[in-house]
């Protein structure tokens, strides 16, 4: 009896994670306009190390993307399209810092990464606020986290149809984040 219950429970968990992982979200999250407005303010006020704002964002925004393989994969596509490779290579780092190791200058939490993209960072990271739509920003955030194995392996993207670089995101083990002191501009 208990076994049956357990089985059912497991099955339903699997089911939910399955649905969560596979949903193809075309429409931006409901009320994206207002969300955009909110984040616009954030991107003006919140700087590195303003955890209150970022915490609020983290609770409202990151979940949808981080468990959805489609959205993370969209993030991977945008990472190429918006030429993040230009500086971060395949996350290996070049002019910009590598994104697949355990070192984080500005924090590894989704909202912190979000802030880094929106506001830019010293030493050459441009501010993309206003250039990249809200939902795409969160897709990029999720993908960036997958680069260092922060996401579930069944959600993280697999190899791209391109030159083989580092092993695909979905086989990388998680890098335990180490906060680095942010360099003074």
């Amino acid at each position, binding site marked *: 009896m208990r076994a049956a219950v357990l089985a059912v429970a497991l099955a339903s968990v699997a089911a939910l994670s399955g649905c969560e992982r596979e949903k193809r979200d075309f429409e931006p999250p409901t009320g*994206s306009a207002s969300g955009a407005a909110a984040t616009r303010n954030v991107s003006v006020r919140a700087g590195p190390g303003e955890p209150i704002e970022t915490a609020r964002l983290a609770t409202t925004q990151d979940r949808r993307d981080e468990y959805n393989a489609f959205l993370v994969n969209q993030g991977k596509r945008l990472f190429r399209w918006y030429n993040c490779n230009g500086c971060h290579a395949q996350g290996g780092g070049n002019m910009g810092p590598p994104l697949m190791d355990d070192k984080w200058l500005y924090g590894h939490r989704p909202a912190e990464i979000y802030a880094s993209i929106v506001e830019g960072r010293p030493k050459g990271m441009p501010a993309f606020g206003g250039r990249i739509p809200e939902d795409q920003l969160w897709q990029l955030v999720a993908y960036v986290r997958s680069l260092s194995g922060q996401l579930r392996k069944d959600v993280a993207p697999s190899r791209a149809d391109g030159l083989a670089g580092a092993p695909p995101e979905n086989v990388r083990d998680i890098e335990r984040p180490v906060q680095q002191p942010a360099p003074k501009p």
Partner: protein
Amino acid sequence: MKRALHLVVAVAFALAGALAWAQRTVLQPGAHDALAPAGPQAARIGDLWDLFMVICGIVFAAVLITLAVALRRAPRADAGTPADVSMADRHEPGPYRSVLVGVGASIVLLFVLLVASVSTDRALARLPLQGALNLTVTGHQWWWEIRYDGDPVSETFTTANELHVPVGRPVVVTLRSDDVIHSLWVPALAGKKDLIPGRTATLQFQAAQPGTYRGQCAEFCGFQHAWMAFEVIADTPEQFAAWAARQRAEAAEPTDEKLRRGREVFLGSTCVMCHAIGGTDASARKAPDLTHVGSRTTLAAGTLRNDAESMTRWIRNPQQIKPGVNMPSSTLADADLQALVAYLGSLK
């Protein structure tokens, strides 16, 4: 049972007839239509089609009539009727001869079809190409990037989802793909050919008379395969030259305040991340080149008529028109959006 027989035969002819009739009447010339050829390639295929229709029609009818006669003449029986095994080890000359004749006839007809098919194929490959117009079509999810290779190279220009060709001049299209497999097909002009990542192929055709011919992706390529269309516009050589000249030029400068505002919006918002407009800072190549978007007849890969109203709808929320398409919906203020639409519309 007779009823059934008659029905079978009747339906047979009805359908065969329907096909033949459909070929001539239902399919209006100029439509998106394989049997209304507007160029030598498609015309040759049309002729081959007619031959196949005739021969296959005859064979089909012949088989069914023989069957019908067989059913009609054979005596009736039931499960109790003793089975006749007398012929089990006896040669049956009558049926033997007829089967032999039938098979022989089939072989001959098949051979005719084979020869006709192969010779047509050869002929299609031998379209004279001197002075051909060269262009490259690259398939993207879910739109067509079209590059006219100029000579000198400075003459080269890029557009999207709308192919202009001069009437009577052969066109050689080089086919590439940027992501998955697509297939380029303009039924009225030529057969289809796949755009395959990692490979290149060429497709040749020629338009016989001026007109607009619809083309469409024929290989399943994802969410918006259904709406990955384009238009081939066959102009007179003069019109074509004029069009090409306009396309080579850089984007028109905004003439009034609203258009200037529109350009600012374009360069200051999300558009610029993917689209290019010649003569401005916008140079991304992930989405259709908009340098002369105002001059095109359709938007969103042959999905919408190109007017301010549908342009506005499209930019506001593309996902409602083409779910899954890569263009994000915009959160622009209405005034900005109107300015943007006006500006894009002005890029003739």
